[in-house]
């Protein structure tokens, strides 16, 4: 009984999270900015600095981020696609930050062992 209620609770939470992501993804075109569930833009900025993403990307607000190997990450919220093939939504972005080579083997973007929460933080910063 206890187990069952816990499972229900879990699936409800997941459902809510998915719903939130879905709602957020639509925000891009309109008045609402996408919100990454559990993402903190301040921590995301720190993670972008720590992983030295600026070696390949130009990222506004990150010191020394002037790389031109990957695409510039300014106005990321306006971007239509990620990696030229996926819709730009928070869930996909988090996945891409963590496992780019698995999503697109031709990419130069490495898998740096970024954790789920770090990826959410980074996504939150990029959508800010």
């Amino acid at each position, binding site marked *: 009984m206890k187990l069952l209620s816990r499972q229900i609770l879990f699936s409800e939470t997941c459902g809510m999270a998915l719903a939130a992501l879905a709602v957020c993804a639509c925000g891009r075109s309109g008045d609402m900015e996408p919100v990454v569930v559990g993402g903190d833009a301040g921590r995301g900025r720190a993670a972008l600095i720590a*992983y*030295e*993403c600026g*070696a*390949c990307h130009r990222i506004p607000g990150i010191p*020394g981020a*002037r*790389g*031109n*190997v*990957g695409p510039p990450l300014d106005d990321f919220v306006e971007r239509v696609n990620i990696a030229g093939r996926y819709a730009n939504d928070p869930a996909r972005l988090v996945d891409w930050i963590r496992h780019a*080579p698995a999503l697109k*083997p*031709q*990419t*130069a*973007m*490495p898998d*740096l062992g970024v954790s789920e929460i770090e990826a959410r933080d980074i996504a939150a910063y990029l959508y800010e």
Partner: protein
Amino acid sequence: MSAARPQSTLDPATGSSASAIDELGLVLYVGAAVILAVVSLLALLGVLTGPRSVNARRWLIGGGLILPATILAALFVHALIVGNSLMAKTHASMLRIHVTGKQWWWEVRYESADGRPEAVLANELHIPLGRPVEILLGSSDVIHSFWVPALAGKVDMIPGRETRLIVRADRAGVYRGQCAEYCGAQHALMAFHVVAEPAARFDTWLTRQSQPAIQSTGPQIEPGRDLFFRGGCAACHTVRGTEAAGRSGPDLTHVGSRHAIAAGTLRNHVGTMAGWIAGPQDIKPASLMPNSAEYTGAELRTLSAWLMSLE
């Protein structure tokens, strides 16, 4: 293991020249503060008590000549003793490290000794704890200056001359150093690290560095190695144990073991390595390393994986 303030003269490593200099500074600051306090007190006393007759000769000769002469002479002798101790005598058994300043990186060479071959690397020095080490400094282009603020004072690196510096640390840690003489466009991005570690760890590290490159295998590693040679990297870089013997860029034999790349500019991992290979001119414009557009994304990751396997 990095010190809280890895590049500060205010947080010198115990046993280092920097800590002797720090103590000398403290003597000067405290002494100057005491003198200022006494003089201020006398001036205040003069104002508060009003005019009265004093022995002018005694105050002028005693306070104006004898007192400052004694204090300055004592400080002079003290500073000479400290200065002399910083330039400790070298002896044959002392570990010698050659560091050559280059626009804009540091070539580091450990002399061969006891059957161990010479070890060459870049932008990183390791030293054993509690033992003075002699660092011989030179330059292959313009004047640079070797400065690790938490370990020692700065010493110029002059083309055609050899300058020297004795470094010692009793506290383990990773100390950061930086070029302290303007040397061109990327002077600000010419840094390095000094790792002070227990003797046993140091010996293991040095033995490793003097060996040829590790030949590891893996689905990314071997293709990455081929790309290194196909791309012409060997024209400028040496990887001991392979046919790569270029001399104008850093020795990459154990590049995967280093803390940073591009002379302290980027932390060293597969991502920064790939970014640096593809676009060094965006990160450090005017450095000798050219951008390389000939690699696909996947190739870049492979090449980076091979270089990082060279530990």
